[in-house]
C-alpha cells in the first residue's frame, strides 16, 4: 500500500473495499487466485489421475495370485504385442481411419453448401440441422441405428421393397466386413460411428471453408481451371486445417469408444472394450492402463502433426 498517496481518491474502506484494492494493485496475485480453483481441479485431480494410471501401466499382475505387483516392469507392454492384443489395436486404429475418411467425404458437401450458398433462414436451418444431431443423446442415436439395422428393421424392409435383398446379402457375405445381419457386422459398426461423429467433422470444416475468399475461386476459374482443378488446388488446401481439426475428433472418439462396437457389431473387440474388460472382471488394471496408453500415444502424435499444419485455428 505504499503508492496509496499517488491515488486520486482515497483508499476504499471495509473488507470488500480493501481487498478489491489489494487485488487491483496486485494483478499477479489476482491471476493466481483466479487460476487456483481450476488448476487444483484439472491439474491435480485430473492430471493426477492420468499420471497414476500411467504409473500403473508399468506394474504387472502376478499370474498365480492375480494381484497387482507394484514393481517397475515393461512386461505389461510386451503383453500388448501378443497377436490377440495387437489384433485389437490394429482393428481399432484402422476403423478410426475408415470412419475419419468417410466422415470427411460425407461432411464436405454439407459444410461447403452451408459455408458458401446458405444464407438468411437457410443458414439457421443448416446450423441447427448440424447442432441438433450433434447434441442429441448419444445412446438414443445408437438405439435408433439398432432399430434401423435390425433384421426385421426398416433398412431390410426397404431393400426388400426395392427388390434389392440380393445386393444386401452379397455385401453381408463379404468375409471381414459382413455378418449375419447389418446389426452384427463390422460394416454396421462403421456406419454408426460415421453417423455419431459426423457433426464433429462438419463444424470445423465449415468454419475453415467460410474463410476461403470467393475471389480466389473466381480467379482460379478465370485462369482456366475446371471445377475439379479448382477443388484440388484451391479449395482443398485451404480447407485442410478444418479437415484435420475435424479428423482429430472423429479419430479420437472412435479410438476410445467401447459402447458402439458392443451394441452394434461383431463380437471382435475394440481397444475400449478390452480396457473395460481388463479393468472390470479380470481386475488386470496394469494391462487396461497399458491399453489406454495406445490411444494417448496415437492422439499425441496426431495432435503434434495437426499443430504443425495449423489446424488449431479452425477449432
Amino acid at each position, binding site marked *: 500500500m505504499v503508492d496509496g498517496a499517488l491515488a486520486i481518491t482515497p483508499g476504499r474502506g471495509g473488507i470488500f473495499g480493501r481487498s478489491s484494492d489489494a487485488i487491483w494493485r496486485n494483478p499477479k496475485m489476482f491471476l493466481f487466485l483466479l487460476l487456483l480453483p481450476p488448476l487444483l481441479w484439472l491439474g491435480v485431480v485430473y492430471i493426477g489421475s492420468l499420471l497414476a*494410471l500411467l504409473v500403473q501401466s508399468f506394474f504387472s499382475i502376478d499370474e498365480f495370485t492375480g494381484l497387482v505387483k507394484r514393481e517397475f516392469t515393461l512386461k505389461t507392454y510386451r503383453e500388448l504385442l501378443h497377436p490377440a492384443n495387437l489384433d485389437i489395436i490394429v482393428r481399432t486404429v484402422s476403423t478410426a481411419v475408415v470412419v475419419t475418411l468417410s466422415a470427411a467425404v460425407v461432411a464436405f458437401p454439407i459444410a461447403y453448401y452451408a459455408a458458401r450458398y446458405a444464407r438468411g433462414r437457410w443458414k439457421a436451418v443448416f446450423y441447427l440441422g448440424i447442432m441438433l444431431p450433434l447434441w442429441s443423446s448419444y445412446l438414443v442415436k445408437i438405439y435408433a441405428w439398432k432399430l434401423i439395422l435390425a433384421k426385421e428393421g426398416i433398412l431390410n424392409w426397404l431393400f426388400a421393397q426395392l427388390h434389392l435383398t440380393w445386393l444386401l446379402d452379397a455385401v453381408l457375405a463379404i468375409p471381414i466386413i459382413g455378418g449375419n445381419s447389418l446389426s452384427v457386422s463390422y460394416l454396421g459398426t462403421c456406419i454408426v460411428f460415421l453417423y455419431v461423429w459426423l457433426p464433429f467433422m462438419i463444424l470445423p470444416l465449415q468454419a475453415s471453408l467460410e474463410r476461403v475468399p470467393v475471389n480466389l475461386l473466381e480467379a482460379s476459374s478465370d485462369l482456366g481451371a475446371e471445377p475439379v482443378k479448382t477443388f484440388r488446388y484451391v479449395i482443398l488446401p485451404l480447407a485442410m486445417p478444418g479437415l484435420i481439426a475435424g479428423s482429430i475428433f472423429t479419430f479420437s472418439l472412435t479410438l476410445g469408444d467401447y459402447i458402439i462396437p458392443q451394441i452394434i457389431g461383431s463380437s471382435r473387440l475394440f481397444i475400449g472394450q478390452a480396457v473395460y474388460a481388463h479393468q472390470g472382471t479380470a481386475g488386470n488394471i496394469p494391462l487396461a492402463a497399458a491399453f489406454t496408453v495406445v490411444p494417448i500415444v496415437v492422439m499425441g502424435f496426431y495432435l503434434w502433426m495437426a499443430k504443425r499444419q495449423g489446424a488449431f485455428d479452425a477449432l
Partner: protein
Amino acid sequence: MHSNVDSQAPRSLKLAASAGLLFLHLPIMLIFVYAFTTEEKSYQWPPPGFTLKWLAVTWDRPDVWQALKLSVGVASLSTIVALLLGTLCAAAISRSKFFGRETISLLVILPIALPGIITGIALRSAFNLAEIPFSMWTIVLGHATFCVVVVYNNAVARFRRTSASLIDASMDLGADGFQTFRYVILPNIGTALLAGGMLAFALSFDEVIVTTFTAGQQQTLPIWMLEELVRPRQRPVTNVVAMVVVLVTFLPILAAYYITREGHRTGGQSR
C-alpha cells in the same frame, strides 16, 4: 465465403448436402414412430399398429423416475462446478498473458480431447487408490471435469469481445471488485454463461462412458438406457424414454442457440 456471382449451387452439391442432412435427421425421427408402436418383442418395420399405452406404462415406472432424478441432480451439480471453474479460467486466460497460458488452455480441452474411456478409467483407478467409495459425488467429479471446457469456450469468447476499459472505468469510479463483477462483468458475460451452462447440462445429462466408470450401483438415465440396450427387458418403455430424452435435450440446445445469437451486441465491442 459468400459468392456474389454464381449464387446458384450446382445440383449435385445440393443433392449431396441435402442427402447428408437427411442422413443426420431421419434416424432420430424414427424414434418418434417407434415410441407409439404396438409391437413389443421386436423392432418390426412397418409398425403393426399405433398406441399411446406405453406412455402411461413408462410414467408408472419407478426405476425410470429414479434414474431421471439422479441424472438431473448430477447434471445440475456438474454445471454449477463447471460454471465456476470455467469462468475463472476464462477470466484469467483472456485478461493477461503469462507463462504457461497455452498449457492451461490445453489442460481445459484435454478431458474431451482424450477419449472418454481414458478419463473414466483414470478417475476410477484414482478413486480406488484413494479408497473413495462410489457415489453421486464421484459421478459429479467426473462430469464436471469435462463440462468445464464448454463453459470456458463460451466465456472466453465473450471476455475477448468485452472491453477491459469497462472494468477499469468501474474501478476508477469507486466500485469495489464485487460491485464491478455484479454490475459490469456479469451483465456482459451473463448470456454466454447461460448458454455454456445449458450445453454443460446437456453434456452431463447425456454422458455415459465416463459414468460407467465413476458410478457404483447408482443408475443415471443413460446408464439405465445402456442396460436396456445390452439386455432389453421391455422394449416399448425404452422407445418412450428415448423419445423423451430427444425432446428434453432439444430444448436447451435451441435455447442456447437463440441466446448466443442475440448476444452479439455487447458492451465495449468497438475496441
